[in-house]
């Protein structure tokens, strides 16, 4: 499979990279590990006239820092380096598990990056296909057309989904992204970085680069967990996933966030389903109740777009949320 012709730049440092992107705007795309971008470029669904390689920026933008109750991960940190960072994996086993679940060891673990995972495009069974496969179908919303194939006749927008495992867990952890442009730095909550629009899932300007992601660990004991359903144990994107972050104070839930992957164009944060847990002891009955509600809330978002039975995915929301919550509670209590 051939790539379409493209130009290639490899700026020496961050300021050179930002200047090049500002000059080229939407004509250019960033290249980190390339494991999301290049398959899409081969399929003719990535607008990549010029790629700007981030390889020389790795020393500036890689690494995990733990300081004053905050964890910061450089955008170019590889999935493996982040997931296996001793302090990160001890404090955030859910994030460790989410990153380790991505693809396969020799595919992207040493070359795919956390920033690339956060900025990876949304996906759909009818989109991530060869041009020959797509030729029989009208162009969909994401490609400038006016249909959504899995969405059906009533769909008025793109229903592609976020299948980035790292993004779903970091969303549950209420992380924020650091973004740089020639004008300077800004911080944007992942809640706002993801637009929820399949056509344009990321709220980044054409001249902006994600430089890192960081999150507050909080004062109370924190438990994190990630549960992913995929066709195989490796090489496969989630068909559905749930991430839970739960804080306990004196045995009572002080804060909790749950996000779903492969359901919506952004990691879908479930607010109302888990709100009743706050201020309560996390008994199995209460967790099961929250998981049941989660299933109900997620149902309208799901369409048949990832190559797995739709009813099964609907039924499984309750199951993955229950598993993630139960494990997060165990971990917040100090268990493994």
């Amino acid at each position: 499979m051939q790539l379409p012709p493209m130009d290639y730049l490899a700026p020496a440092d961050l300021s050179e990279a930002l200047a090049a992107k500002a000059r080229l705007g939407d004509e250019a795309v960033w290249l980190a590990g390339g494991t999301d971008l290049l398959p899409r470029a081969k399929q003719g669904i990535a607008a990549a006239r010029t790629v700007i390689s981030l390889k020389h920026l790795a020393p500036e933008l890689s690494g995990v820092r733990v300081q004053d109750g905050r964890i910061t991960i450089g955008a170019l940190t590889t999935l493996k380096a982040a997931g296996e960072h001793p302090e990160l994996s001890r404090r955030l086993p859910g994030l460790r598990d989410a990153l380790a679940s991505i693809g396969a060891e020799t595919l992207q673990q040493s070359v795919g990056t956390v920033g690339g995972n956060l900025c990876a495009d949304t996906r759909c069974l009818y989109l991530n296909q060869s041009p020959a496969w797509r030729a029989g179908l009208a162009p969909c919303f994401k490609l400038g057309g006016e249909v959504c194939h899995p969405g059906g006749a009533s769909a008025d927008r793109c229903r592609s989904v976020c299948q980035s495992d790292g993004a779903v867990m970091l969303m549950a952890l209420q992380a924020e992204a650091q973004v740089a442009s020639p004008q300077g730095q800004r911080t944007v909550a992942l809640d706002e970085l993801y637009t929820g629009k399949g056509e344009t899932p990321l709220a980044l300007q054409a001249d902006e680069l994600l430089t890192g992601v960081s999150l507050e660990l909080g004062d109370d004991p924190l438990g994190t967990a990630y549960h992913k359903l995929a066709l195989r144990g490796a090489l496969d994107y989630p068909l559905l996933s749930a991430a839970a972050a739960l804080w306990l104070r004196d045995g009572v839930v002080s804060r909790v966030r749950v996000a779903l992957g492969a359901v919506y164009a952004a990691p879908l944060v479930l607010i109302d389903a888990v709100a009743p847990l706050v201020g309560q002891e996390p008994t199995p009955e209460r967790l099961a109740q929250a998981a049941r509600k989660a299933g109900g809330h997620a149902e309208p978002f799901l369409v048949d777009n990832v190559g797995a039975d739709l009813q099964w995915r609907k039924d499984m929301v309750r199951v993955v949320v229950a598993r993630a919550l139960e494990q997060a509670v165990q971990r917040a209590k100090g268990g493994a």
Partner: protein
Amino acid sequence: MSLAIKSQGLRMTVNGEPVELLVQPHETLLQVLRERLDLTGVKEGCGEGACGACTVLVDGLARRACLTLALEADGCSVLTVEGLADDQGLSIEQQAFIEAGAVQCGFCTPGMLLASHHLLEQNPRPDEAEIRRHLSGHICRCTGYAKIVEAVSNAAARKRGEEPS
């Protein structure tokens, strides 16, 4: 749009030999290794990252050559299956694959060998779960994997100077 795109210089070390050539920016490392350098041990299975047949080591890290722009390897050292054997003969991993019957059609074998080499460089004593995890991104349509896992385990023992159990 694409007419103005210029070739760029690429220098790398491939299997210990320095090479220098002009490439188009959209050429993948897979294309350059196979079509320019005749290193046809690098296989193209899927061309989109999902099979592992094209795996090579770039500066010691496993990469899909089909998803790597050749220019990304500028200044790097690349190892392909052709670089595993030396004047003395096949590498320990290659010998172990043959002895265990871990090769049938052979299409996945170069990727499997490089992944195995990569694993044993980092972990001289992998258990079966670690071997399976490391090879999990490699698809073999022939062997059923059991012989491959056995071969890697035997190669690990040989590399440690022990007899395979």
